[in-house]
């Protein structure tokens, strides 16, 4: 058990497609062209969670680069520093709006609250004679009170947030105007020389304005609160689904109220910085700010539908809008134009937000399957009387049925040393049949998923490939243990393929290593047939080493590797590829170690499992037969794409999966014989077969039984009975 896992030798790999005999350069280029799938890149990219914040960030960088390049003085230090002070104020307000939007509401009164708090703080500082810290605290309190007015109306009186805050906007603005009317003359003449006040306005920490430093602190705290605290989770939950939140016991009204209070509080904080920086007690402060803030928040990627967003997104949106405004200002574009641009951006951003939120899944789904060219060789005649090796016969017609109606989808079957029969079922069970005629049925283990390939290791543990779960082992006592469900990730592709999606079949090498195939890394078990329509090399061969407990990918990018079988001499693996209708041989030991070659190709049907026969030959299951029409369709990727787009799924052209056979092939790659069930009434989809004690046991993915036929000694293909079976560790069933 010390030998290392064989690596695929460089340059020793046949093309991952069926190569026609007389291939021209044009055909080669066509294949190459169809290998590239830009749509697939798109689909995989937009499936990523980081893609949504990445777009606003890219926009921010784009805006920055654009203005740096086109506007002189934009990227200068003074400009950026002065922008950062304004940005801090805008970001704080945006953060408040973001919290409200995440909670499923909206706060249009932010501009008026900002203006009112600004006025209030200036009045308190200049006219009331209160010490500055007290005035600032009172300012924050006023902001929180204004927010709680919005919050109580929305949360407890159940009014519509949009119109409510639109109305409080004019009410607050009216109050602000009244204050301005009565006190503006007095505030204009007072100068404040309090150090705290000046620190708020012009203080710098390491050259960065104090307001910006505060913003960073608020962002960090806000991030922790929103993503790590109970309150943050409640806010997100209420925004995502109010009903579900209420059913979960969250006090929805209180959460809503708190989110509006946050908004008012942050508006007040921003207003304090603004007031101390500019000391402008104008009634026009914060006018139209709601538009800027709303646009920034949505541009940052905080969804209007609620329940989604982070403080960083709010900051990114605020920075984008702030830089845009500054850049336009430096370009001598008027404020009206900026407002107009904002309104246009708002419409586009809201439209995109809604359309994207609604159609994201659909768009990814529509572009997920990307057909490519799959060529096939000439289709062999299988009709009775054709005289070919694949001529149809009725050798499976008399098969005995085991567990008829008691099993659903025994993909693989296996027998232990005592002659008991095991199979996996669709319910995620391993069934065991025992007794003379296998009449006693019991559930040996409940794993889950859909157990596919089965094999016994040297300690009589049953090793199982479970679709959707990975590689599992069941002890003789029926205890289930996970061996592995992950492998090393391929960093060259976007899709994370470290989890095992569709482990299919396995075999155990003489040194104890478990080789197993993962048929496809792109589709779930229920959609495995879509992988056939796509025809891309999405599968891989993996190796689990029980000695180290490590799993490694041995060969990646295989077209649907299905059956795996260690050869009789234990030095190579046979890998059956379903959609390419060929068998590969991979040398795991000996002088050719690491070489991959084509063992047999151009089968007339789609291959499934492959097993050793008692006489040195191999059994191969064909789960369905090729047809000229589908062969042609596989040669035409655009046709298949059009088919998937234009017609409903149940009317697509699929590979035929309802009529197959069992084939026996020799070590040299010759067809020795076939076993057919004409019409496929009893054994429609044959996915596995196992030879044991002179009988052949037959399993099928869609079948309701396990078949058994006696292998006739006199049959020309069944070789001499006296031949010793090479004992290979972990192949007890053979």
């Amino acid at each position, binding site marked *: 058990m010390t030998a290392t896992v064989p690596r695929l030798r460089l340059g020793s790999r046949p093309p991952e497609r069926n190569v026609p005999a007389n291939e021209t350069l044009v055909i080669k280029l066509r294949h190459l062209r169809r290998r590239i799938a830009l749509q697939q890149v798109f689909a995989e990219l937009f499936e990523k969670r980081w893609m949504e914040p990445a777009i606003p960030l890219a926009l921010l960088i784009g805006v920055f680069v654009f203005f740096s390049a086109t506007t002189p003085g934009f990227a200068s230090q003074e400009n950026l520093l002065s922008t950062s002070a304004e940005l801090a104020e805008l970001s704080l307000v945006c953060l408040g709006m973001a919290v409200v939007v995440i909670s*499923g*509401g*909206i706060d249009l009164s932010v501009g008026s609250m900002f203006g009112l708090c600004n006025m209030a703080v200036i009045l308190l500082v200049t006219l009331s004679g209160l010490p500055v810290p007290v005035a600032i605290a009172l300012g924050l309190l006023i902001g929180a009170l204004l927010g709680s007015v919005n919050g109580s*109306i929305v949360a407890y*009186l*159940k*009014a*519509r947030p*949009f*119109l*409510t805050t639109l*109305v*409080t906007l*004019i*009410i607050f*603005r*009216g*109050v602000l*105007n*009244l204050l301005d*009317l009565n006190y503006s003359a007095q505030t204009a003449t007072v100068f404040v020389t309090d150090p705290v006040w000046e620190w708020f306005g012009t203080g710098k920490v390491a050259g960065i304005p104090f307001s910006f430093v505060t913003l960073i602190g608020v962002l960090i705290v806000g991030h922790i609160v929103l993503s790590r605290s109970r309150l943050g989770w409640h806010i997100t939950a209420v925004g995502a689904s*109010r*009903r579900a939140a*209420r059913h979960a016991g969250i006090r929805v009204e209180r959460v809503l109220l708190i989110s509006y209070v946050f908004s008012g509080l942050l508006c007040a904080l921003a207003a304090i910085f603004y007031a101390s920086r500019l000391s402008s007690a104008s009634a026009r402060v914060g006018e139209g700010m709601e*538009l800027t803030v709303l646009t920034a928040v949505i541009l940052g990627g905080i969804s*209007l*539908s*609620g329940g989604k967003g982070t403080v960083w997104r709010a900051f990114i949106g605020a920075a984008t809008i702030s830089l845009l405004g500054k850049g336009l200002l430096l370009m001598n574009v*008027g404020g*009206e*134009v900026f*407002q*107009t641009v*904002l*309104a*246009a951006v*708002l*419409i586009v951003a*809201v*439209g995109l937000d*809604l*359309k994207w939120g*609604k159609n994201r899944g659909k768009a990814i789904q529509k572009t997920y399957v990307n057909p490519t060219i799959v060529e096939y060789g000439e289709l062999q005649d299988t009709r009775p009387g054709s005289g070919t090796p694949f001529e149809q016969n009725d050798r499976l017609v008399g098969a005995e049925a085991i567990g008829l109606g008691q099993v659903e989808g025994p993909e693989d079957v296996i027998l232990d040393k005592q002659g008991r029969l095991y199979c996996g079922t669709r319910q995620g069970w391993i069934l065991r049949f025992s007794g003379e005629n296998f009449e006693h049925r019991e559930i040996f283990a409940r794993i889950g998923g859909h157990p596919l390939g089965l094999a016994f290791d040297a300690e009589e543990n049953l090793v199982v490939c479970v679709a959707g779960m990975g590689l599992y082992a069941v002890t003789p006592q029926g205890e289930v243990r996970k061996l592995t469900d992950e492998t090393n990730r391929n960093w060259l592709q976007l899709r994370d393929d470290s989890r095992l999606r569709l482990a299919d079949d396995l075999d155990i090498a003489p040194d104890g290593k478990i080789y197993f195939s993962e048929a496809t890394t792109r589709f779930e078990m229920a959609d495995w047939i879509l992988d056939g329509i796509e025809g891309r090399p999405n599968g891989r061969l993996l190796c689990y080493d029980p000695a180290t407990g490590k799993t490694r990918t041995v060969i990646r990018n295989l077209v649907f590797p299905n059956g795996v079988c260690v050869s009789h001499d234990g030095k190579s693996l046979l890998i059956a590829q379903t959609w390419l209708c060929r068998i590969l041989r991979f040398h795991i030991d000996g002088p050719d170690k690491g070489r991959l070659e084509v063992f047999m190709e151009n089968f007339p049907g789609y291959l499934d499992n492959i097993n050793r026969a008692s006489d040195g030959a191999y059994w191969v299951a064909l789960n369905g037969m090729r047809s000229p029409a589908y062969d042609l369709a596989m040669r035409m990727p655009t046709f298949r794409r059009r088919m998937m787009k234009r017609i409903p799924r149940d009317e697509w052209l699929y590979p035929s999966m309802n009529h197959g056979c069992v084939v026996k092939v020799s070590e040299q790659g010759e067809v020795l014989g076939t076993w057919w069930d004409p019409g496929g009434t009893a054994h429609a989809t044959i996915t596995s077969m196992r030879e044991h004690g002179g009988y052949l046991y037959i399993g099928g993915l869609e079948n309701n039984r396990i078949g058994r036929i006696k292998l006739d000694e006199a049959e020309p293909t069944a070789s001499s009975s006296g031949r010793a079976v090479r004992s290979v560790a972990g192949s007890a069933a053979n």
Partner: protein
Amino acid sequence: MGAVLAKARADGRFRLSQEQIILIVVASLFVVFSVLLDGFFTADNLLNLLRSVSSLGILSVAMAVVVIARGMDLSLVASMGVSTAIAIQLMRSELSTPEALLIGLGIVLLLGAINGFLIAFVEIPALFATLASGLLIYGVARTLVLDGLIVELPPDREFVRWLGQGVVFGIPAPIVIFAVVALVAHFLLSRTRTGRFIYAHGDNAGAAALTGIPVRPLTLIEYMIAGAIGFCGGLVMAGSVGGFNTQIIDGSLIYDVLLVVVVGGISLVGGRGGVLSVLAGTALIGVMLNGMTILNMNTHEKDIVKGLILLAALVLDNRLHPRDEETVRQGD
């Protein structure tokens, strides 16, 4: 319809409709103001009240059409103002009055169609779409199309001037126009197929679509109708003062319109109320505004009072016609 008639309930008692309550409030307010305020109950003041309120009434009829269809047009004042200002600006050139008016009408219809498109096809909630489009319309017009903030009506355009200042049988033309607009809108809403469809759309958009009503094109038509009615209101405003000040778009006129509609009893849930509700709402707001003017309140105090009343009306409307709070979408 039939809102003014009290409905007999099963237990034989009478229940007042919202319009009736409003009219009773108007009447009592009227009496109170007449007694308390000097100069309220004079022929001059009352005529003045009616005239000043008629353009607001026309705009409210426009808003009513979309609110009945469970929509909202916050860009109503903007599209009205922009199209009126452009029409008047064109009248300052040698274009004939009908041509200028047709162009103005075309613009307002186009803006309505854009709003309808954003709402029906892009599926942006009406509040967001019209809030943003109103700002966009005003911004584009101000920066690209209009010469100044205030456009003067040339003295030779008699028709437009008559709309605002003319007299028909001793009644000021704005009042007559308001009456005509209200009648036409009433006929449209209650006697035509389109009107029925609008009610169906507002009552239950999903059911309307299932019964075969082309809800999306209908939305376009609703916003276009609202825009066209609003354009009439804009012309009356322009005629009465001999020009148009586009700064009104920035003001709180849209809140007055909302106030009339919501107070009148056209619920924001859609499918409720009618032109009579607008009349009741207009009467109430007209009396109230007039009273506040006589009380010598400044604009800011008026804004606060109007805001508080609107807030109360919104809360009340929500109580009378509750929505499903749990599943409501943003912007509903």
